[in-house]
């Protein structure tokens, strides 16, 4: 069966009894989507299905059929300006990741959140990210980086309008 991933149709094999996370990682080599808890608790495996952040470790692969799947590898392409997505830029600027295993999930969650809320209050950032765990404890920088990403994205949007 073919899945639509990052704008490309990819042959993903037989999807019966398969979880999206393993199809992405093991079949298709899209290992940027990480697997942390396998049960929906940590958020490491977050991808977008039609733009909605979704935990791929508890998503049957067949459910993603016919939907547009976006993974960390395709995130930058969803953003109109050149280069990395503002969330990725901000995470580099503030040197957020430690081990980095949670980061694809943090970034996919934060990017979807900023799409729906371009100027969030600090408390809204916490609500958006409180189900994405980071064992290394990057939370201190994570909070600041999401706000920094919002600033970058707003500046890009203003530049387009000008």
């Amino acid at each position, binding site marked *: 069966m073919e899945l639509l991933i990052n704008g490309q149709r990819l042959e993903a094999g037989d999807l019966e*009894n*398969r*979880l999206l996370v*393993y199809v992405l*990682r*093991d079949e*298709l*080599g*899209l*290992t*940027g*989507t*990480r*697997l*942390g*808890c*396998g*049960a929906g*608790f*940590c958020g*490491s495996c977050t991808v977008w299905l039609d733009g909605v952040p979704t935990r791929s470790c508890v998503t049957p692969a067949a459910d993603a059929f016919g939907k547009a799947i976006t*993974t*960390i*590898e*395709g995130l*930058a*392409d969803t953003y109109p*300006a*050149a*280069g*990395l997505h503002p969330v*990725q830029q901000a*995470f*580099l600027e503030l*040197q957020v*990741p*430690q*081990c*980095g*295993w*949670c*980061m*694809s999930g943090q*970034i996919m969650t934060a990017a979807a959140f900023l799409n729906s809320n371009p100027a969030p209050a600090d408390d809204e950032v*916490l*609500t958006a*990210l*409180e*189900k*994405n*765990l*980071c*064992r*290394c*404890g*990057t*939370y*201190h*920088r994570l*909070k600041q980086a999401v706000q920094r990403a919002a600033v970058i994205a707003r500046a890009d949007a203003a530049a387009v309008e000008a």
Partner: protein
Amino acid sequence: MAKPKPRLSRRGFLGLAGAGLAATAGLYVAFGFGRRYLIENFDRLQSAPDAEPNSWLAVTAAGTVRVYMPKAEMGQGVHTAFQQIAADELYVPLAQVEIVLGDTTVLPEDARGTNGSSSIASVYPALRQAAAYAREMLKAEAAQKLGVSAAVLTVAGGAIVHQGQRTALTYGALIGERRIVKVLGEDGVPPLKAVDEYEWIGQPAPRLDLPGKVDGSAQYGFDARLPGMLFGKVLKPPTFGATLRSLDEAAARQTPRVVRVVRDGEFVGVVAETAEAAAVGVQRLNAQWTEKARLDQQADVEAALPPGGPGGQVLREAGDVAAALRQGPVVEAEYQTPFAAHMMLEPPAALAHVRQEAGQWRADVWTSTQGASSLVGSVARATGLQAEQVVVHPLYLGGGFGRKSVADVALEAARLSQAAGAPVRVHWDRAEELQNGFLRPPTHSRLRAALTADGRIAGWENQQASGLVFLGILPPVVKTVLGWDFGATRGAVPAHYAFPNHRTTAWLRDTPVRTGFWRGLGLLPNVFAVESFMDELAHAAGQDPLRFRLAHLASDSIGQRMRSVLERVAQMAAWEQPLAPRTDGWQVGRGVAVCEDVKTVVAQVAEVAVNPATGAVIAERVFCALDCGLVINPDIVKAQVEGNVMWGTSSALVEAVTIKDGRVAATNFGDYPILTIRQAPLVLTEISVNKSEGPYGIGEPPIGPTAAAIANAVFAATGVRLRRLPLTPDRVLEALRAA
């Protein structure tokens, strides 16, 4: 309009390395056998006397500096620090230094592994000398070429410069197509760059590993793939000590996509075409077990834990504690910490390919490990191969924290691959990891002290008991060699305080679940006990807890460095100004705690808010002042402080493993919560400038004080003392009601 984007492709399969160093031109600096004076601190890094030189550093014909360092990158930024050290000593831009992510045929052997906050402290002197040695050799070459004395030459921008002749010979040009192998020290000891002249060391250089961690391309052990790879899962007993009675191999074999069932005594594994099918296959084995007649319970662990009885080891004895305690008045308290899990987000995972090629066995293992070198021998033993036939490919770690010093999952993958005749990947799910990995052991400390009339500590006694740390993992001979399981007692003897009479005694307890290394080992539990007790003594003496600590500091260098970070953190937190009370009913308070570990001194002040109606505790801010000697990269040090404070807060407030009916009660993050972003304190860090010593470790020391600082702050806020971690709302409420 088309726009340039970094093109990220799907990951291809792995290629086998193996070109080795041998054929390539360049200048290689190796450590020869017997040059121990150069590896003073790098004590356990061994180089083979007559094999291929164990290069630590190479300057290529293109002038690139390559560093071969067998230390795992697990988010602590160690590779970036190596880049800075090499760039400084060789006078090249950072970008000219490459950290080789090689396998065990390319990297020098490192029996110690990546642990104990030791990497920078041990590598700095060695790498610096290797780099300086290469530089001096290049200088000598240039002097010969130019027909001048080396003394008139300077080094800049990756070239040897002669000001008078206005010439600059790049490293690449000097090396040309030759392959030069030098053993460090064979031409004498090179002069080192003065610490004050460092250009890169001390700068917040951006982390080398982060671009791949934000775009998804970074490769971890769990990400390794090979064509035709299969997926394995090994059957595990449901409870501690259960033995296998029967199973249904045929049912498992008939599971769709299952390729085979591997059985070798109690080792039973299922190999399948997908990870999902391997897990289903193990369930279909329908294994029946004989369990222990009496299943282990948490209450048994706690009943056996308290200190006392035979087997105690005196760790510190000074003066006459018994006499001091007889003088009174005596303050006494007991503190307990629970089992805790690592819960690194990347679970244990490994890909192994064990096969015969042209009649020769060979095993390759890709994994996230803190000890690639020692894993070679373990894989060899598990497969019956020779160590020379095993290659370990260490990849990035999605968190290690001590857990990935033990690579049991890699051995499972190797055995299954050998049996299946194909590459096999194994990963542990969370329940499997919690039950079959290992934990931080529980501790129970009993402290007693006598105070003088003017409020000074006259006698200090700490009786500490803990589950095993080193001995839970390493062979029993370790106790003979080291004399004690010092992992369990790390932090139990506060070297920065001077007590006239002092005795610390420790006991070790077996627990039904395996225990071992966890970030900082015993540091957090022991500092929780020691620094909570210091707080209790300060209050008993009617003194300010911060000034009480200052009054008890030793006069040696550790004590002096501690004084300066304590005074610093007091300023940062505006300790002398009371916190503004809240109007919403929450009670606020501030607590201080300190520790010394691997010569790094740390002082922290925590500010907490407690809800007296619910018992909820929030750590609002944690201030941290520390002195870790020479700082290679201040931003990485800060990140490590932030991470450690989150760990300390998490342990203080939410983390505990309990044993129930022969099992670890928790199975995943749902029942073993860790700190979330909403619960995370703001962390404010200041690093002392101290270039005269170090660098000292930073990966663990700041975890020490956090839990104690928080518990002390809860006391300041509410007047109730909590002596048992974690400080859950139930326990806080109970203590408030009892008060």
